[in-house]
C-alpha cells in the first residue's frame, strides 16, 4: 500500500472520507444488534410476526422507501454538481434532499400517531393482551424505526449545515469533504431503511 505523507488538502479529504466510512461501520453494527434480535424472534414467532406486520401500512412504508431512494439520488447528484462547480444546482439538490427527508419524518409521525390511537405502543395494555410474537414485533418496530428516524434527523442537520456552507462558498469544487461525508451518512440512513422496510412491512 503506497504511503502518503504530503499534507495537502487532497490528502486530508481522503483521510476525512476514510474516517466517515469507519464511522458508518459503527452505525451498521449499532443497528446490527437490533437486526440480530429481530432475526431471533422472527425465527421463533414467524406466524405472529406475519400477523403483526399486517397492521402496518405497506403503502406508507413504500412511499417512505421511495422518498429515501430518491433523496439518495438527489444527494449523490448534489455531490456531482459540486464537483463540477455548479453551485446553484448543488443547493437546489440539497434542498430537495432535505425536503424529502422531512416528508419521511412527517410520514413517520402520522404512522406512529395512528398506532398510538389504536393503543399500539410499548408497554400499552393493548400490547400486553397480544400474543407474544406480536408484542415483540411492535417492540422491534418502534425501536428500529425510532432509532432510524433519529438518524434521519441527524442526517437532516448535517445536510442543512452543508447547505449553509455551500451557500457561503466554504464548500466548493475543490473543497467538498463535508458534502461528501454528509452524503455518505445520508446513504447509510437509506441503506438501513432498505433492510428495515421489507423486514417490517413486507412479511405479510
Amino acid at each position, binding site marked *: 500500500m503506497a504511503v502518503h505523507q504530503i499534507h495537502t488538502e487532497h490528502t486530508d479529504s481522503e483521510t476525512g472520507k476514510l474516517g466517515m466510512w469507519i464511522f458508518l461501520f459503527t452505525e451498521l453494527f449499532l443497528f446490527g444488534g437490533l437486526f440480530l434480535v429481530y432475526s431471533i424472534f422472527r425465527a421463533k414467532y414467524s406466524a405472529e410476526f406475519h400477523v403483526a406486520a399486517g397492521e402496518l401500512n405497506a403503502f406508507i412504508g413504500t412511499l417512505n422507501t421511495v422518498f429515501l431512494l430518491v433523496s439518495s439520488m438527489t444527494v449523490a447528484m448534489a455531490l*456531482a454538481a459540486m464537483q463540477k462547480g455548479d453551485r446553484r444546482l448543488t443547493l437546489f439538490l440539497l434542498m430537495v434532499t432535505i425536503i424529502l427527508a422531512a416528508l419521511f419524518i412527517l410520514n413517520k409521525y402520522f404512522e406512529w400517531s395512528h398506532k398510538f390511537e389504536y393503543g399500539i405502543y410499548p408497554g400499552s395494555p393493548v400490547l400486553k393482551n397480544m400474543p407474544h410474537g406480536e408484542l415483540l414485533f411492535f417492540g422491534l418496530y418502534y425501536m428500529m424505526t425510532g432509532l432510524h428516524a433519529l438518524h434521519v434527523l441527524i442526517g437532516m442537520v448535517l445536510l442543512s449545515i452543508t447547505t449553509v456552507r455551500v451557500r457561503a462558498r466554504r464548500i466548493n469544487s475543490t473543497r467538498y469533504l463535508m458534502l461528501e461525508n454528509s452524503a455518505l451518512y445520508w446513504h447509510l440512513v437509506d441503506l438501513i431503511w432498505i433492510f428495515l422496510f421489507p423486514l417490517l412491512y413486507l412479511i405479510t
Partner: protein
Amino acid sequence: MKQDEKHISSYSSLAVVLTILLVLTTISVLATGFHLGPFTVVLALVIASTKVFIVLTQFMHLKFENLFLRLAVTGVFVLFALVVIITFVDYYFR
C-alpha cells in the same frame, strides 16, 4: 490517489441507478402478493441485499474507491453475518 483522477458520476447514470432501485422495490412489494411461504423472506432479503449493493457501489461510490475500503465494507457485512449465524447455533439447536 490524486484529486484529478476523481471519478464524477454523471446525472444520467445516477438517474438510471434510481430507476433500477425503484423497479426492485416494486418487485419486492408485489412479491408479497404471491404465496411463496418461507421463500418470501429469502426473496425480500435477496432484493434488499441487491439494493444495498447498488447503493454502496454506485451512490456511495464504492466501485471507484480503493481496494482496502471495498474489503473493509465486505468484511463488516461478513463479520455481522457470522455473529448472527453463530447466535443461531444456540437457538436453532436448543
